[in-house]
């Protein structure tokens, strides 16, 4: 444990052999990723909404799916002190290389669930990025020239499962389907691990509906 004998290593990366094995597995999973952002070796994602919409959980699930694709991930968050309302955001970095700086410098993908977050975070979205928003909550779409998808996630979730709380999972499905930042298989597994016990079935339905939106 002494500094000379065993100074701590570079961080979460593991040894060279482990890194090579991870890279190999990451390449294997890349075959299953298709979509607008599937080819990027570094993807920075921001989810924005208001407290209670499940924004932080979305980030956690996406990060877990990215980890299941054997890529390096970091998920951070920022939220106000309120339990409901207030702002909430969740950032995920998915990379083929080890991640040093843990926060977003800009976003390749912005998922906005309310007007305030669309207005606030559009400035961090790269011009070659992708904007996904809930078209019933974000009525005044901020000016953006790149790819954009306005989908009534909350309404679709209610139609599909009878519960608008599943909107976040449906959105995740749509995001993965359209952009390919994670594989559908990893996302499915991550959703099942993370959603509250007893809600697996309705959340799986919401996820499937979201994934199907890629074929619109």
């Amino acid at each position, binding site marked *: 444990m002494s500094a000379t004998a065993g100074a701590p290593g570079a961080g979460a990366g593991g040894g060279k052999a482990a890194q090579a094995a991870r890279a190999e597995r990451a390449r294997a999973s890349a075959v299953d990723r298709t979509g607008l952002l599937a080819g990027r070796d570094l993807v920075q994602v921001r989810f924005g909404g208001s407290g209670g919409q499940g924004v932080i959980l979305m980030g956690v699930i996406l990060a877990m799916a990215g980890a299941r694709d054997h890529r390096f991930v*970091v998920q951070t968050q920022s939220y106000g002190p309120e339990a409901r309302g207030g702002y909430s955001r969740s950032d995920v970095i998915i990379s083929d290389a080890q991640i040093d700086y843990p926060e977003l410098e800009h976003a390749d993908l912005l998922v906005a669930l309310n007007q305030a977050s669309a207005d606030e975070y559009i400035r961090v979205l790269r011009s070659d990025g992708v904007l996904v928003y809930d078209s019933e909550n974000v009525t005044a779409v901020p000016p953006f020239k790149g790819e954009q998808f306005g989908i009534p996630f909350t309404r679709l979730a209610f139609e599909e499962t009878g519960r608008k709380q599943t909107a976040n999972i449906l959105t995740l499905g749509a995001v993965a389907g359209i952009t390919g930042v994670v594989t559908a298989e990893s996302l499915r597994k991550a959703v099942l691990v993370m959603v509250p016990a007893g809600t697996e079935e309705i959340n799986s339905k919401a996820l499937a509906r979201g994934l199907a939106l890629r074929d619109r």
Partner: protein
Amino acid sequence: MERWHTHVLREKIDPSSMLIQGNRACALGALDAGVRFFAGYPITPSSEIMEAMAVELPKVGGVFLQMEDEIASICACIGGSLAGQLAMTATSGPGFSLMQEAIGYAIMVEAPLLIVDVMRAGPSTGRPTAPSQGDVMQARWGTHGDHPAVVLAASNVADMYRLTMAAVRFAQRFRTPVTLLADEVVGHMRESFAPELIDRYRLTSGDFDFSPSYIHPELVREVHPPHVLGSEAHPHVTGLIHDETGFPTNDPQKSEKFLRELYDKVGNHRDELCLYDVKNEGKGRVCIVAYGSCARSARAAWKLAEKEGLQVEVLHLYTLFPLPVEIIQKVARRVEFMLIPELNLGQYAREVRKMAENWTTVISMGKIDGTLITPREILDRVTELVGKYESV
């Protein structure tokens, strides 16, 4: 490996895709290091450590106590420690302030403890969900009187696991409280985490001996024999300056001897206690000295600089106290500037300056707006330093 890392390995079926929150990794590190006693009071951004311990400790026969406040929490830990448990608590700035008096008591009575402070922006209630490194000097000098301190700083989720283990080991070996500093970003972030890495921190069976009479064989002459409650001898434990009987003394010679021994048992083992990592060794005119989240920014700045054709060295400190004098002075001799980015107004930069100013120029780079220092900000400062002095 499996034997020592049971808790962390149970987290996920597939270890290559582990994703753990920093605070949870800290709790798992403590459990894997043998911590079986936790007393605390929840506070953002450290609460997840306590939540994990509340769930996990009863499963392994440990004791979990939610106390009425942080003063009671640390005092319960001292009690647990004196009764032969390696006790742990976790808190944030306001709670850490409340604990200070009892931390001094723990140092005096040589109770091995682990205190985790997940720093928020302060002072006072500050900003509970914003990161900061404002408690660095408090971790060193928060309790009154001259005393030794062992303070580690975690920069990522893997650190939260392995430095917690290291902290437990240091506390047990040197019979003293050890503070692990993290910040809101490190505590709350979730990150992929490779368990193969931690194999080299394998603990040996002696490291799990928390019996109250245990002293590591290498340290017999330096660590005072503990007073064991429940043994046949009459134990006496006091925060007053005491001699080997455990009873108070006013004898100047004995007082000085006692305090110097407390100091020396830590100070003489800097070699073991001071953990660090040097990147891009010996290259460039500037060394970025960083710890905690800022070390991540520093590493990113180094790679960014490399892309732009500029070399910088990075000294990543995992141990802040005892001061890593040797490595600081070694690096100071070969660079023109030491740049210290930190999320406070230069608390640790002043320490580095004291150690290094004979050989190099120490530049403090503080930020207190509750956001991280970006790699670009660091690199801009490096470029400015190198450019500014090139023409002179």
